[in-house]
């Protein structure tokens, strides 16, 4: 109904519509080129040998793709590349599940229950959202060492439970999309509060959870700062650490830029897969406030 009315009005200014469409498409194509250019660079570079890379840029791929793959695969200075991919995956998957589940739960708690200090809790979380991670890094390392948790994944995974910005996003989403009537109806049916959350609310929140899962997975997958402080053992290294090791050699005799680009390329593949898997929620569009209107 709404669309019909809009279309009716549009008829009056077809030319403006044509122009704005044209401009929009040009802009979208420009943005697409901008976004994909780095991937193009990466793919081209991963097919070139170290000497070719040093000799300057070329537009078309070369023949060293498999050489680089073999070098990266056999590089023992970073233990074993696939192990790093597995490590990164374990940490990122655990992180993204914990972050979204518990931060959404916190947001749900604040939205649904009128407990004393609710307002304070909300304001407090907003406040701590502002604190950069690095500020507490020093003390965090000390704590981790004191607890004997250095060279384990716990310090990378557990803190994910408290993610203020995920909380903030979920809070807004729940406020605008979750009718409290559903919660009440579930209670009338005798559902336990946690059951209501897990089996009734989480499915409703799925689109927003998916968006936050992508964000959290990517952030963890690409995180160098914290893992570099906690992990010292080769077999535990995550991909960003491995990349930094190989990259740090590029100025010396052992350096191989072809290998570096290959590792970057391999590092992107799993995260692209996860992204494409969850991206239907992004493409479909996550709506804030669509239910309540």
């Amino acid at each position, binding site marked *: 109904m709404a669309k019909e009315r809009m279309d009716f009005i549009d008829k009056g200014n077809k030319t403006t519509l044509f122009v704005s469409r044209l401009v929009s498409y040009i802009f979208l194509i420009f943005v697409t080129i901008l976004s994909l250019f780095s991937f193009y660079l990466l793919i081209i570079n991963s097919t070139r040998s170290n000497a070719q890379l*040093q000799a300057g840029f070329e537009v078309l791929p070369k023949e060293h793709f498999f050489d680089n793959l073999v070098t990266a695969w056999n590089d023992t*200075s970073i233990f074993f590349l696939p192990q790093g991919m597995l490590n990164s995956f374990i940490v990122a998957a655990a992180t993204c599940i914990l972050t979204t589940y518990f931060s959404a739960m916190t947001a749900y708690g604040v939205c649904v229950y009128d407990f004393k200090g609710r307002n304070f809790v909300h304001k407090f979380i907003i406040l701590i959202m502002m604190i950069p991670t690095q500020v507490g890094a020093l003390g965090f390392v000390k704590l981790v060492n004191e607890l004997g948790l250095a060279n384990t994944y716990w310090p990378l995974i557990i803190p994910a439970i408290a993610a203020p910005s995920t909380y903030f996003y979920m809070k807004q989403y729940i406020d605008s999309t979750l009718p409290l009537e559903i919660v009440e109806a579930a209670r009338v049916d005798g559902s336990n509060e946690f059951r209501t959350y897990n089996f009734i609310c989480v499915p409703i929140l799925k689109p927003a959870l998916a968006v936050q899962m992508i964000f959290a997975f990517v952030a963890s997958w690409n995180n160098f700062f914290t893992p570099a402080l906690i992990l010292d053992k080769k077999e535990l290294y995550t991909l960003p650490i491995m990349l930094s090791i190989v990259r740090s050699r590029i*100025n*010396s*005799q*052992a350096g191989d830029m072809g290998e570096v680009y290959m590792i970057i390329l391999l590092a992107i593949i799993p995260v692209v897969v996860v992204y494409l898997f969850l991206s239907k929620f992004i493409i479909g569009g996550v709506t804030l406030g669509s239910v309540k209107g």
Partner: protein
Amino acid sequence: MNDHNLLEERTMKKRIASALLASAVILSVASCGNNAPAATTTKAAETTTAAPAANNDTQAAPADTTEAAATDAAAPAAADEGDTFNIYAWNEEFKGFFEKYQPGYDAAAQTLNGVKVVWTINPSDNGVYQDKLDAALQANASASSADKVDMFLAEADYILKYTDSDYTMDISQLGLSQVDTEYQYTVSAASDSNGKIKGVSFQCCPSALIYRRSIAKDVLGTDDPDEVQAQLDSWDKFDATAAKAKELGYYMTAAYAETYRVFSNNATTPWVTGGELAIPDAINQWIDQADTYLKNGYTLTSGIWGDEKNAQMFKDGKTMCFFGPAWYFNFCMGNAQDPEKGCSGDWAICKGPQGHFWGGTWILAATGTDNPSLVADVMRAFTENEEVCENLIVNEGQFTNNKKVNEKFANDPSFGSDFLGGQNATAVFCGMTDSIVWANATIYDQLLNEGLQTYILDYYQGTCDKDTALANFYAYVNEKYPAIQTP
């Protein structure tokens, strides 16, 4: 043109030959889990590479083919030693040599005399290697046997930090003493302030002027090392030649800090005295020279390890001079040796304006090691074992820390490098060892050298004035070393 093709063909042949040789050595080492030693011979100098017998029991398996190795009777017993041999290093160079030549090393099992060898390699940029090593050394006393650092490598720029601490062992505790085939400066560098020797170097690193023959012919009218040396034996002559090279469309050097080492090695005062930082005169001289060179276009703004400099090593490069020791042209001039784009054979070396050294890799024993006898084995192998040293020269192009072996090759008229157009690099380096002095080292040198080179560039570029550039450098020093008082 024909010359080039011939040269390339020869290089190719040489490369294939050495690749085959290398793989033969690796194969033979890998395949001798039983006690049959395999042997390959190199044409160039008729030395024998005996792949050692790798015993699977924990007893030491010395390759006692030389008298030197046999003299040490009092090697500590290996009975109650740890089962992991942890080595810390900042790159793969020594690891490669160790895996090829260390007697008793089993490449397939990655064990030395039955003990598992574990390498921890961290880059030296920004002090990362030192940071990680320091943390490990401090934890060594309480670390488990599997994690204890047993042996680590150190460079000239910071070796003092370790030798002058309790984290390294006196080599006499390992049953070693100074041998007279070692070069004196390598021993001085490994000694603490009380004169106790804490380690050995497996390299001697006199650094030479490496020049492009074809460009030297153009600029100086000759490519003969002696004549080139005569024309470049002082900074005045060097500077004058730089101007001439510029006129002909060449660069004298490819990085503004290319000559830094030459000056800093000849400094007469240390960087830090009594906790106060003062830029040595020699380094001030470099600051002025680099300024002139950049302003006049004699050199480039590339870092000494930068892509831009490395690209100058290709055949179409326009740079006449590089500075570096034996390890440099063998490991850092890959572009020059590239079969397609390189210019192998178009190079030669001479002493240059001032004698100096660059780098060097010292082997140190970490206090608390549970494999002291293995550390001692490695130290001996790479300084006293003539066979290992010969392999380092012939197969790896190294200049070893063994006078006797170096001189043998220096005096061999048939020994020469294809890369250097047949020149005998070992002979040139032998002639340079006397001018190396070890003096005025501090524990801070690496990062001070690195920092100054970076921050002073802003002044050369005109981004800021000299005082600001130096102030930025001092601020960097304060971050890295709060104990140093800066101006």
